[in-house]
Every structure is written in C-alpha cells, then in structure tokens.
C-alpha cells in the first residue's frame, strides 16, 4: 500500500511522538558561523575572501614548485642530457621525442628550454609533471577542504541570484568548480541539475569557458601577468553566452532547492584519499593524452600538415582574431592539447593583447578529447548542440575580443 505525502507525514508524526524526544537545542559556534557565511552582508565578503585565498595559494604553490624546482630540473639537467644522449639529432624521431629545434641561417640549433623543444620526452613530460602536477595537487587539496567543511552549498546559495539569470541555479557552481580541476568530472556533476535544458547549458558553458587545471597551470606559468585579463574574458563569456543560451534553448529552468548541511571538521583520511583518487584519475587521463597529443602534434609538424593548415587559415586568424600568423600552428595543435598550445604560444613574439586573445581562443576552443568522450556519454544530441554553440562562440567572441582591442587601441 502506498500513502500520499500528507498521510505519510501523519504516520511519521505519530511514530516520532512515540520514539523521539527532542531536548532543548543549544546553538553552537558552528551554527553561528554557518549563518554568518550564508547571510549576504557577511557571506559575500567571506566568499570573495575565500575565492581570493584559493587563488593566491594556488598561484604561489604551483609557482613555487614549477619555477623553483621543475623548471631547473628539466631545463638545466634533463633537456641537455637528453639532447646529448638521444641518437639521431636532426632526424624526425629526434624531433618528435626530444627536440624539434630551429634553424638559424641554415644551421640546426637545439632549444634552450622545455617549452620550446616540443619533444614528447621534454615538453610533454615537463608540462605533465612539472607544470600540471603541482597545479592539480594544490587545487584538489583546497577543493577537498572546502567540500568536506561544507562550504560549497553556502557558496551555491550566495551565487544563486546571478546563476539563475543564465538559466542555471546556485548549484551550478559545483560542476563549474570541479571543471576547474578537470572538465571530465565536471560534466558528470551536471547531473545534479534538474532539467535537460539546464544540463545542456551547463555542459556547453563548461566545455567552452572553463579552463581545466592543466591549462590554468600552464597559463600561470607562461603568462602570469595576463591571467587576470584572460580569466575576466572567460567569466564574462560564461555569463553572456549563458544568458543567450537561456533565452534560446527550449525547456524549463527550475529554481534552487538544496539542503545546506552543517559545517563539520574535515577528516584528514577522507581528504587524503579523495585528493589521491582525483589526482590518480586525472593522471590516468591526462598523462597519456599529453604525451600522445605531443607526439601527434610533432608528427603533424614533421609532415608539414600544420604548416599547410596554418598558411590556409592564417587570413582568418590575422584578419578576424587579430593574432599573428605564427599562432596558426599552436591554435591548430590546440585541438589536441590546449596546455601544449599555450606553451607554444608563449614562445611567439606578440603584443600582450594578442597573447590574451590567443590564449582565450585556445581556452574556448574545442574541448579536450577526454571531455569530448564524456559529453558523448551524456548524449550525442547534446554533444552536437554544444559543438554548434562552440563554433559560433569561437567566432563571435574571438571577433568581439579583437573589436574591443581595436576600440581600446591596443590591437
């Protein structure tokens, strides 16, 4: 027999009266903090402080390990050693695995650092271990802390007002923040949204505007001074296109309804296990993709494919996006590895504004292969829709950024 909602509650009331006694409840400090962090007057400043703190710890930790340790290890010891011992300097295998080098007045010259060599064993390993690993470790550590304390639902409450305007609601912050680590679990987390419309908007925005930990790590390393601008453009894009999608995608965008659990002391063992599990998961996906992506890009360079495409597409890049012709190669390589593409971009001489445009383009580009596969799992129609939106966004938003640059007189 089934009861309706009212009958069920009546029964529970009767049972509860017989079996449960509620003593006087003492409000604790935890409750007080809980309320202060959700009330807008106090909660919004706290949220800004938490986000700022998150960002500064992320930047300094990742910078400390990458610049202070891995750059030296890879550029001073690993690269020269490998350039020395790997056989066949100048031939194609050497170029793909170690160093594609460059030609100066007809002479083959070796690269001086791991961001310019583009070998699987040099750039590939350096990006995966030297840049991405520290970034991912600190990101997941801080995220696990915020999660286990119970801060995320409160952040969701505070952000509901703005996220509701783009067809989502506060809880969309969960997939968004997860995606900053890796888009793959971010796509899975879209399931906490209620309707198809919301999940589609969320997935599309994630794939386009949320750079993953690998990308953020490398951006932080090679263009630290421009990070603010790049992120600003991505956030603005997230809201502009979210707003438009909300208007054109059919379906419902239901309101926010969530449980806000009490704060609790995080358990170290849980945090440790979680961080470890996520890093392991990330690396199972990322390392093969970084190395393989690096190899494929190397092969395509060797075969002249990228040069050919670059020449063919150069007018679009130069005319429409306002970036130098040389960026065509990296922008095409970005189909395979965004992090490597950012590294390649950093080696090209261009104005800061062009660099901002180029890096934003790489970010909003085609999602990485793993994310692509994950989206396919959620439904091929959604994936095709997302790709259509993506194409439109890359051209309109890329053009818009160029236009803004022209108006500001910097492009």
């Amino acid at each position, binding site marked *: *027999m*089934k*009861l309706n909602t009212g009958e*069920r*509650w009546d*029964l*529970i*009331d*009767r*049972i*509860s*009266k*017989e*079996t*449960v*006694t*509620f*003593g*006087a*409840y*003492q409000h604790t400090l935890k409750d007080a903090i809980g309320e202060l962090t959700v009330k807008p007057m106090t909660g919004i400043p706290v949220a800004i402080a938490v986000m700022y703190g998150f960002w500064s710890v992320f930047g300094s930790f990742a910078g400390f390990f990458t610049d202070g340790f891995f750059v030296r290890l890879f550029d001073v010891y690993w690269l020269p050693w490998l350039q020395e011992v790997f056989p066949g300097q100048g031939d194609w295998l050497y170029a793909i695995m170690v160093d594609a080098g460059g030609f100066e007045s007809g002479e083959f010259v070796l690269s001086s650092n791991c961001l310019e060599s583009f070998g699987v064993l040099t750039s590939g390993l350096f990006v995966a271990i030297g840049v991405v690993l520290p970034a991912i470790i600190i990101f997941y550590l801080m995220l*696990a802390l915020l*999660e*286990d*304390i*119970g801060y*995320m*639902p409160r952040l969701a409450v505070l952000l509901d007002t703005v996220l509701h305007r783009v067809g989502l609601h506060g*809880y969309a912050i*969960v*997939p968004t923040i997860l995606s900053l680590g890796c888009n793959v679990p971010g796509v*899975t*987390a*879209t*399931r*906490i*949204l*209620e309707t198809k419309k919301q*999940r589609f908007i969320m997935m599309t925005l994630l794939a386009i505007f949320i750079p993953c930990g690998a990308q953020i790590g490398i951006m932080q390393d090679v263009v630290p001074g421009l990070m603010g601008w790049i992120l600003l453009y991505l956030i603005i894009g997230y809201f502009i296109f979210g707003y438009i999608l909300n208007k054109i995608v059919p379906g419902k965008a239901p309101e926010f*309804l*969530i*449980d806000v*659990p009490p*704060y*609790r002391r995080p*358990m170290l063992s*849980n945090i440790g*296990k*979680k961080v470890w*599990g996520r890093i392991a998961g990330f690396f199972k996906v990322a390392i093969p993709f970084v190395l393989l992506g690096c190899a494929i890009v190397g092969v395509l360079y060797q075969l002249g494919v990228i040069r050919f495409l670059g020449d063919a597409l150069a007018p679009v890049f130069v005319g429409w996006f306002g970036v130098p012709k040389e960026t065509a190669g990296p922008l095409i390589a970005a189909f395979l590895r965004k992090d490597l593409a950012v590294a390649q971009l950093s080696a090209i001489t261009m104005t800061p504004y062009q660099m901002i445009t180029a890096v934003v383009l790489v970010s909003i580009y085609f999602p990485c292969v793993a994310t692509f596969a994950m989206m396919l799992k959620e439904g091929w129609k959604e994936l095709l829709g997302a790709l259509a939106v993506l194409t439109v966004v890359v051209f309109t938003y890329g053009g818009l950024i160029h236009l803004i640059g022209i108006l500001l007189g910097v492009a």
Partner: protein
Amino acid sequence: MKILLMGHPNVGKSVFFNRLTGANVTESNYPGTTVDYTKGWMKIEGEDVEIVDVPGTFSLDPKDRAEEVAVSMLHESRDAKVIAVIDASKIERGLYLAMEIIEEGYPLVIALNMRDVAEDKNITIDADRLERILGIPVVSTVAIAGEGIKELVSRLKEAKPVNVDDIIANAANASDTESAADAGGAA
C-alpha cells in the same frame, strides 16, 4: 544477494560502504560528488553479497538526474534488500524516505547513523520501540567510528517487507499502551 545502501546525501553512506566492503570511496559534505553508484562485495555467513552505494536522494520523487539514478537503481533491483542510512539528528525526514521504500515493498534495515551528533543535539531515540512499531531492524550506528556495523550486518537477515497497515496499527497501539501506562502511573 544484493544490498542497496540508500539515504540522503552526506549521511555517511560511503563510510558504511567502505566499512562493509573494504573499499576506498570518499564522500563530501554536499550532494553531487557521488552521482554514480559504486559496487562492492562482502561475505556474510559464507555467502557473497553485492553491496551498492546508491547516490544520495531525499525522496523517491527524483528532482534531478542524480536522484533519478538512485530511484531507478532501486526499481531495477526488485529482489534487493535495502539499508536505509538515516541521519539520527534529522530523523523525521529520514523516516520519510524509509517509509517510501517500505511502501514499495522492499525488505529494509534502518541504520540510525550519527547517533553521536543526535546526542549532542539532545535528541534521544528509542530505537527498540521504533523497531517494534516499524517491524524491521533498527540499529544505532556511528559509522565513522565503526560502531554498530557488526550488529547491522548480523541483523540483515531479519529484514522483511512490511505492510504499511501494520505500521499504522502498531503506531496506534504504541500510543494506547503509553497512555495506559501514563494513566496507570497517575493513578
């Protein structure tokens, strides 16, 4: 045999799962990280039993895709037993979900988890009495500390489908006996 671990988000289902299966599933203090289920195995009295850590859900009327996963798992496992993990400090809304599962005819065991939190909040639950009214095993647990897990496992075999009418009758009887006892005490 198959056992589903069900309950609200962050009531410690994953902790139960780890304790039972020796797995390493982690949990977060908000819904959304376990949007997929996890399976594991344990031995109970020599029999291999499959344990499923079902995503958290507040009711059997799913409000999002993650809850849909939970509800359809329940419906696809008609022959399964269910362990309903309830936050003892929020017992009423926990019972709401437990009642929904009972009404669908599943054999159920209730784990009144976070007993320590409930005690801190001055909430006392008469688990024996609750057990008599519902007609199914009710075990107080503190999963993080491993308390009550053994008892829970040993009582799984007592789980059986219950008729809601019986529960209604039991609840009425319970209040009669109590008022009778009160009357006796007063006299």
